[in-house]
């Protein structure tokens, strides 16, 4: 278990839910080169006015493969006119995001309530 209570041995999975124009994608387990294709395959086509929330709170591990997914989504969202936000995890995953300065590019929140004004 991590300090956040996330199991390190949890198999990788991606939960996708949609409410109106908002799609939430919540990967769990370990995100790396082996599991990145699974996450990418879960990302739907989006259009102007849509928003995508990437909920990273159940991730036990993430490397630069995850950063690549986020940065690709950032470029797509700007080009296609939809919104992108990340719900961060307080541990190692967030430190990788911070090291790569992702919060400077992508809206990153700790509490989903903060997204209500998005």
């Amino acid at each position, binding site marked *: 278990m991590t300090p956040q209570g996330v199991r390190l041995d949890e198999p990788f999975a991606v939960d996708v839910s949609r409410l109106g124009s908002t799609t939430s994608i919540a990967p769990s387990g370990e995100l790396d080169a082996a599991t990145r294709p699974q996450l990418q395959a879960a990302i739907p086509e989006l259009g102007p006015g849509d928003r995508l929330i990437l909920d990273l709170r159940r991730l036990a591990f993430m490397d630069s493969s995850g950063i690549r997914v986020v940065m690709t989504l950032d470029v797509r969202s700007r080009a296609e006119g939809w919104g992108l936000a990340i719900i961060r995890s307080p541990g190692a995953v967030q430190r990788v995001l911070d090291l*790569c300065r992702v919060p400077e590019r992508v809206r990153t929140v700790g509490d989903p309530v903060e997204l209500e004004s998005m």
Partner: protein
Amino acid sequence: MSGEPPELSETLPAVAESVPRLRRAVTGFAAEAGASGMVLESLRLAVTEAVTNAIVHAYVDHDSPGTVSVIAAVDDGALRITVSDRGRGMLPRIDSPGLGLGMPLIAQAADAVDVHEETGGGVRLTMSFNLRARAEAALS
């Protein structure tokens, strides 16, 4: 008992599925050696990036993937982890599929890093993690 200090040595095919297997092997060895908290987090990230670099770049001009090896051992209070391949070496690549974040993240995570191009092909990357007094700022 041979009296030799414990060492981890694993060689797997240089394919994406080997990334979590090698990370978990090193994590288990490091935890047995006394690594915890931030040190464990740092080495998990660094090993993952190093193995991924080998998988993505080392055998790009080969018909089939080669192997990637990880050796870990404790030496004078430090955990030394070597990730090596037998691929094309440190040749520039204009079609790189990555963001170039692997080595910067390794440099941030490890206390010391050494990269060596092997005579006859391949890259050997050695990372050290201080088990005694690891700076908590490494990933903060």
